[in-house]
């Protein structure tokens, strides 16, 4: 009889830190200690605390073990599983208070989890994503059953509309209205498309949902199909997400076997089936019209709207296209009602939002919080703050299409409208945290490099414009810029925004515009003072030895890879600026803090 479950994270983050091996060792040790009939090993999706992976949870106690290594497994099995003694040294128990923690700490009391409210991620890290039965045990497919047997398509759309759910891919278009616009259009075939082409650097929300709870997407797409009168669905997912693709494929097969996809589902006469299409990794394919063009087998390029997909989408038929996280909310709304969903969040942004925390933050990982939570809570409480005692400088939301939120706006409640108001955007949920060591001009340049690479080339403002933007930024970071360059940069940004064909070009200048808005002084420092305040841009940087502090130990000279440092023993040394490649090796090796960046 099973008395304990050992949950091992099988998300991409933990898999890359070795959770597969740990699972094998667990299986071996459990067998060795004769616990095979008492302890069940379950591979789950992402728990969210990727920074501390590989993560293992032991139930029924709910003990959360972090950074488990293969060599720790025997101790967990022999101590915890066999003798009931929790292995304290591996437990994550950061409750935010300084009081020492005794015994077992409920996961929900830890700082990382206590302010979270998991709706889209409700099953991630709880169920085995490869078992349809476990999904059903968590009320899975009950929403589909309810929709098909108790509700009319109009009622389903009304429920979604009333809930206030908005597109989680970044645009924030009301989901109910999208469905309502598609439903009345007559056509022999309509489609439901799930956008899982998560391309922003630093975003991995959709991947985690697909890896941890693939059935919720299948269920939601079938509900959407019923609501708008579509019988076929496509999930467009990146080929770079092999685990997500495999689990989704398995889930589709299981659902077909159970008759939850196919003909006459729940005896209602409604048919629905779906397919996976793999994306080749082009960022532009996350744009809805380009995505549909790509599904059709053509080169992934956007086309002008209107006509909108609601009228003419995939294969020229009316199509509803929603993002993974949007779909993940749908079954819960049908089951628990629009009112429940609308009770969370702010006036115009209902429900919760999943964020992928990355960059200079302690708890890199995945969090789901009610809309309207302040950036301060996300970064300082849930995220655990900035590592190494550095100061928070800004956070980038929306990846290469978004903007930054500077430190003095850290108390902004995060929702669609507040972020738009400060020239930022919600985006799909990537949240990259930057500390005082980040140069904002360099950061804007990084995102521009990305959009230049990813521009599909169809329209000139985006293809040529972003390239020119990048050249200007490059000039500025090299110390060759002028004040006129900054003005021209700004003008060009607005031109690209207004004239580009699709969302990629229209949003590509955002990182430049928002850094110009909040950190214009840094741009000015680059062009007027020829200095990089954060000490990042190499061309504007000098390493200098402070004469008074230098003891003449020769250590820096011996470690300089290009022999740029000269000086006699016990005499102050000097760096030859012409030879110096600014690698920083001398700073790292100086025992007297005598070398400074300026």
């Amino acid at each position: 009889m099973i008395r304990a479950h050992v949950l091992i994270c099988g998300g991409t983050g933990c898999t890359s830190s070795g959770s597969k091996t740990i699972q094998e060792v667990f299986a071996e040790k459990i067998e060795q200690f004769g616990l095979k009939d008492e302890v069940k090993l379950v591979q789950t999706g992402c728990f969210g605390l990727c920074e501390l992976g590989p993560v293992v949870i032991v139930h029924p106690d709910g003990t959360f073990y972090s950074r488990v290594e293969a060599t720790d497994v025997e101790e967990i099995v022999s101590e915890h599983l066999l003798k009931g003694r929790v292995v304290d040294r591996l437990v994550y128990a950061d409750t935010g208070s300084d009081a020492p923690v005794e015994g077992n700490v409920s996961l929900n009391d830890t700082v990382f989890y206590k302010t979270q409210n998991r709706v889209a991620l409700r099953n991630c890290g709880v169920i085995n994503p490869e078992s349809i039965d476990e999904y059903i045990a968590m009320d899975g497919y009950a929403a589909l059953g309810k929709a098909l047997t108790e509700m009319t398509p109009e009622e389903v759309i009304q429920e979604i509309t009333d809930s206030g759910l908005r597109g989680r891919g970044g645009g924030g278009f009301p989901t109910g209205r999208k469905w309502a616009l598609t439903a009345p259009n007559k056509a022999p075939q309509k489609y439901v498309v799930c956008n899982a082409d998560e391309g922003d650097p630093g975003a991995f929300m959709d991947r985690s949902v697909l890896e941890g709870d693939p059935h919720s997407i299948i269920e939601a797409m079938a509900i959407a199909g019923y609501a708008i009168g579509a019988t076929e669905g496509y999930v467009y997912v990146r080929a770079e997400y092999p685990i997500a693709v495999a689990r989704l494929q398995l889930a589709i097969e299981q659902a077909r076997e159970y008759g939850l996809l196919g003909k006459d589902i729940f005896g209602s006469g409604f048919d629905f089936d779906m397919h996976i299409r793999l994306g080749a990794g082009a960022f532009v394919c996350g744009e809805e019209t380009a995505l549909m063009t790509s599904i059709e087998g053509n080169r992934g390029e956007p086309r002008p709207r209107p006509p909108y997909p609601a009228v003419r989408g995939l294969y020229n038929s009316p199509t509803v296209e929603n993002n993974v996280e949007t779909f993940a909310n749908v079954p819960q709304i049908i089951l628990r009602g629009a009112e429940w969903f609308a009770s969370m969040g702010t006036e115009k942004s209902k429900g919760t939002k999943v964020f992928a925390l990355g960059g200079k933050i302690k708890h890199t990982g995945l969090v789901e919080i009610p809309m309207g939570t302040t950036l301060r809570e996300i970064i300082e409480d849930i995220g655990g703050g900035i590592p190494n005692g550095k100061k928070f400088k800004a956070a980038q939301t929306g990846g290469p299409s978004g903007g930054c939120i500077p430190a003095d706006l850290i108390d902004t409640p995060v929702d669609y409208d507040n972020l738009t108001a400060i020239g930022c955007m919600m985006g799909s949920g990537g949240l990259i945290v930057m500390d005082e060591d980040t140069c904002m001009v360099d950061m804007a340049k990084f995102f521009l490099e990305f959009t230049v690479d990813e521009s599909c080339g169809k329209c000139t403002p985006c293809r040529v414009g972003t390239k020119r933007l990048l050249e200007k930024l490059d000039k500025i970071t090299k110390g060759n810029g002028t004040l006129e360059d900054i003005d021209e940069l700004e003008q060009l940004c607005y031109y690209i925004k207004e004239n580009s064909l699709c969302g990629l070009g229209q949003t590509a200048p955002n990182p430049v515009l928002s850094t110009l808005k909040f950190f214009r002084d840094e741009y000015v420092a680059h062009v007027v003072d020829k200095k990089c305040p954060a000490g990042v841009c190499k061309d504007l940087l000098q390493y200098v030895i402070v004469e008074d502090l230098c003891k003449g130990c020769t250590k820096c000279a011996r470690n300089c890879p290009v022999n740029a440092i000269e000086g006699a023993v016990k005499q102050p040394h000097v760096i030859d600026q012409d030879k110096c490649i600014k690698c920083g090796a001398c700073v790292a090796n100086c025992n007297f803090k005598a070398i400074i960046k300026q």
Partner: protein
Amino acid sequence: MKSLAELQAIRDKMQNKVALREGTGEKRVVVGMATCGIAAGARPVLGAFVEQVNEQGLAGTITVTQTGCIGICQYEPVVEVFEAGKEKVTYVKMTADKVSRVVEEHLKGGKPVAEFTIGQQKA
């Protein structure tokens, strides 16, 4: 799948199996499983609790778990029952045979089996 009843059947069957992870147990049965407990026969006691709680469909409200040595090794196997708002009940010198009465009278009936508790033991 042609009816909601089929879905419900799978759900009912599976719910017991995942209830263990929910952590919503209103009552917690904790079996001492240190070396002393195991030597005195705690394993069959734990097994009996798990089995009977599951068989009777109580897994959603009762959590069966284990702990280390609580210091009264001469009374092992020791089983403690925790319930919110009530005083802890400590059963001592448990055997697998005694488990069914605890499940029936205490966990389901709400009345501790006094004769198995530590208070009834003669030093």
